[in-house]
C-alpha cells in the first residue's frame, strides 16, 4: 500500500493540460459535450466509460488526430502548459502539437522497418542525422520502455518479428524517443495477453515520474491499478473526475457507481 501521507490538495497540483468547455462534432453529430477537465503534470489520468462515451474521441483531440479526416470540428479549448497554448487553436500547427504529444495506439503498429529504424523515425523527422546520436537516443528510449535488453543484439531485425507485448513496448519506445511532454495511450493493452498487459502497466508506473500520461481504457481494474486520477465519461459528457482512490471507493455520482460496480445495464 502507498504511504499514509494525505493526498495533496488539487489546487496545489501543477497542470500539464486542461480541456475547457470542449465540444466536438463528427459532422453534425456531437460526440463531446462541454468537457472541462484538468490533466495534472507527471500524473496518470485515466478515462473510463462504456463504448461510445467519447473517451477516445477526447484523447485524439489532444494531438489533433481529428484534423486528418474531413468533417470534424472542435469547439472550445485545450490549454497546454507551461506556455498556455491552446492546442486546438486554428492558428496552431497540428504538426507542432504532435511533436510535443506522442500517442500509443490500441493495436501495436510498428512500421514494417527494423527495430532501430522504428524508434529512430521520430528523431529523423526532427532532423537528427548523426548516427552516434541516434544510437544513443534509441538506446535510451528502448531502455525506458524496458525493451533494450531483449532487442539490443537484433536492432536491425524486422519489428514485426517481435511478440505483441514487445511490439507495443517498441511503439512506446518510438513515442518516447522524441521526448514528448505528454503521452497519450489509447487502450494500449486491449490487444495483449495478461502478462504483456502487466508489463505495460509496470512501464506506465515507471514512466509517470518523467512524463504526463493520459490513458483511455475500457478495463476498469486497469484504471484503478495504474492511474492517479480517473474521469468517467458517458455519452459525451464528463460525469465524474477525481482521485482514483476516491472514484473507486466512494464515487459521488450514482452513474459512476453503477458503471464501476457493474450495475450498468
Amino acid at each position: 500500500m502507498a504511504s499514509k501521507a494525505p493526498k495533496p490538495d488539487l489546487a496545489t497540483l501543477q497542470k500539464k493540460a486542461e480541456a475547457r468547455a470542449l465540444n466536438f462534432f463528427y459532422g453534425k453529430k456531437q460526440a463531446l459535450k462541454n468537457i472541462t477537465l484538468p490533466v495534472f503534470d507527471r500524473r496518470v489520468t485515466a478515462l473510463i466509460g462504456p463504448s461510445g462515451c467519447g473517451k477516445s474521441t477526447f484523447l485524439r483531440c489532444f494531438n489533433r488526430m481529428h484534423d486528418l479526416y474531413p468533417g470534424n470540428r472542435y469547439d472550445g479549448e485545450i490549454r497546454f502548459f507551461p506556455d498556455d497554448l491552446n492546442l486546438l487553436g486554428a492558428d496552431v500547427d497540428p504538426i507542432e502539437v504532435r511533436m510535443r504529444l506522442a500517442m500509443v495506439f490500441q493495436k501495436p503498429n510498428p512500421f514494417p522497418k527494423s527495430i532501430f529504424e522504428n524508434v529512430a523515425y521520430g528523431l529523423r523527422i526532427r532532423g537528427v542525422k548523426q548516427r552516434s546520436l541516434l544510437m544513443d537516443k534509441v538506446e535510451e528510449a528502448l531502455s525506458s520502455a524496458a525493451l533494450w535488453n531483449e532487442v539490443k543484439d537484433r536492432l536491425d531485425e524486422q519489428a514485426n518479428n517481435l511478440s505483441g507485448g514487445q511490439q507495443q513496448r517498441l511503439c512506446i519506445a518510438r513515442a518516447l524517443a522524441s521526448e514528448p511532454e505528454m503521452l497519450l495511450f489509447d487502450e494500449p493493452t486491449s490487444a495483449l495477453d495478461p502478462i504483456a498487459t502487466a508489463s505495460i502497466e509496470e512501464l506506465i508506473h515507471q514512466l509517470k515520474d518523467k512524463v504526463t500520461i493520459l490513458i483511455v481504457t475500457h478495463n476498469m481494474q486497469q484504471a484503478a491499478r495504474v492511474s492517479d486520477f480517473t474521469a468517467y465519461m458517458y455519452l459525451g459528457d464528463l460525469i465524474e473526475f477525481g482521485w482514483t482512490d476516491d472514484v473507486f471507493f466512494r464515487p459521488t455520482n450514482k452513474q459512476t457507481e453503477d458503471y464501476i460496480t457493474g450495475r450498468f445495464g
Partner: protein
Amino acid sequence: MNTSEHISKQYDADLAALRSRVVEMGGVVEEQFRFAVDALSSGRSDLAEQVVANDRRVNEFEVEIDHDCAHLIAKRQPTASDLRMVLGVSKMVTDLERIGDKARKIARLSAAIRSSGVPDARWLEETHRVADLARGLLRDALNAFVRGELDEAIAVIRAAQGIGRLVNAISGELVRQITQNPSQVAVLLDMMAVTKAVDRVADHAANLAEHLIYIIKGTDVRHATLDQIERETLQR
C-alpha cells in the same frame, strides 16, 4: 447502499446470500444472549448448557462468512459500495462472534452465581433490564443493516452511551459489596464479569452500527465522537 441490480445476476445472488447469512448469524447471536440472560434470571441450568453448546454454531458462522467474503473479493473484485459492503460485513461478523462469546460466558457463570445464593433480586432485575436494553440495541443495529438506514445506525451509537452509564452504576454497587463482604468476593467477581459482559455486548452493537455507517457512507467512524459522526455523515 446501492440497491440496483448488477448485470451479473450471479453477483447479485452472491451479495444477497452474504447479507442474509449475516442477518441469520445476528438472529442466532441475539437468541444466545437472550437465553443466557434468561438462564441467569431463572436459574435454569439446561438453558445455560444449551447456550454453551450452541456457541459452536456462532463460530462456524464467523468462519463461513469470512470465507465467503474472501472468495467474493477474489472472484468479483468489488468496488465502491460493493467493496465497502464486503469489508463491512467481515468486520460485523467479528463483533457478532464476540457477542456470542459474551453470551456463552454469561451462561457459563450463571450456574455458579445462582447456586451461591449471593445475588439479590435487585441485581438480577437491574442486570436483566440492562441486558434487555443491550439486546434491543443489537436488534436495532441488525435492522438498520437490513434497511440500510443511516439514522438508525447513529441512534444505536447514541443509545449505547446511555447503557454505559447504567452499567457503571451496577458495577459501582458491586464494588461496594466486595469491600463490605470480602468473603463473597469470588462470586461477586463473577457477577462483575457478567455485568461487564453485558456492557461489552452494547459496545459490540455500537460497533455494528459503525460498520454500517462505513458501508453506507464510506466514512470510518470507529474512533470518532458522536458529534463528529453526526457532522460527517449527515452533511454529504
